[in-house]
């Protein structure tokens, strides 16, 4: 029987492992935004600087993830966009909540 030539890109994605990876990434991102909220709140940052801290910590988390994966994104996630940049909007609300809470607890009340 003739066997077709297989390129590496034909390898299919292992679904369960991808799900595990994305769940872990989601947990990581939640930790990241919690920390960012606490930093922004405790240091009393105002307005746009606070959102800048959130983006900065998000990128730091992505960078640490890249180092942990040894920059071989394809082995763990579908694409580099998925792994590094995709969820930035969803955790923003979480960041805002933690920021408001800690800002009030530490600075105002």
């Amino acid at each position, binding site marked *: 029987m003739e066997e077709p030539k297989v390129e*590496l890109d034909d390898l299919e994605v292992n679904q369960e492992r991808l799900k595990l990876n994305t769940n872990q990434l989601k947990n990581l991102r939640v930790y990241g935004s919690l920390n960012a909220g606490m930093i922004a*709140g405790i240091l*009393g940052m105002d*307005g*746009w600087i606070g959102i800048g801290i959130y983006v900065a910590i998000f990128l730091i988390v992505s960078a640490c993830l890249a180092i942990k994966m040894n920059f071989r994104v394809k082995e763990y996630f579908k694409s580099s966009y998925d792994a590094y940049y995709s969820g930035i909007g969803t955790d923003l609300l*979480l960041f805002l909540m933690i920021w408001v809470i800690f*800002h*009030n607890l530490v600075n*105002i009340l």
Partner: protein
Amino acid sequence: MSDILIDDRIRDWVFLPIIIVMFMIQMFRGLLTKYMDNKKTTQKVTSKAQVAEMIDKNITQQSQRLARLHGLLPDHSFKMKRAHLCDNKSGILTKASEKPAKDPMQSMSMMNPAAMADMLKQNLSGIVFMALQYQWVSYFFSGFVIGKVPFPLTQKFRSMLQRGVDVQNLDVRYISSISIYFVLLFGGLQKIQQLMFGDDTDEFVDDTQMQMQMQMMGMPTMPSFGQQNDPGKLFIAERTRLEGVKHTFELNKSQDKAIKSLKRFLNQ
């Protein structure tokens, strides 16, 4: 506008209690849904229409599974299964697609009492708690300023964030207690709860099972689901999909794949 000094007691008796109570209610909701899931017994099939409906569901599940996982079957096995489903005269899908379209009124009776009770219970655990919390917060904690948001907002947010506080020139940054409720609601106490009491069991839910669950919950939205009115079309679509599947047995490729990945591994 100079800074407003807020009493310590507001923090002790308003701010922290609201957060703690909302978090507790969130955890309680999680436990409640777990309890109700455990209590859910399998539904008894009572009428002939329900039996027919279950058969249809099982047929679609079988054909979808075949279309998705065909790589795991060797050639003759796949061909037999496909013929069993798609054969011109005796295939199950061809027979099923010749059924008449269902009457829309009749398909309403698909909501047997158990499914309705399930949906009611889900709504209960969702909306009732939200309304309860809103009432509690706005009854006990209205009329004063509770804190300050760190970012500047326009005047349009004043009515939402400062409900009950009637001072006109107050900086929009100062918020009343209802706005803390909203911030907590939208901000996602759920995510923190999932972090702390991790959901290990939800990670391996099968895709088709999720789809079926979503379809069960989506039953009230009648117009968007063509399958309730005309199951014949669905079966025809499934049949064309199965007939178009290019089948290769994955085991044939596995030697090449293994060579490639071992090469990659050794070359690092």
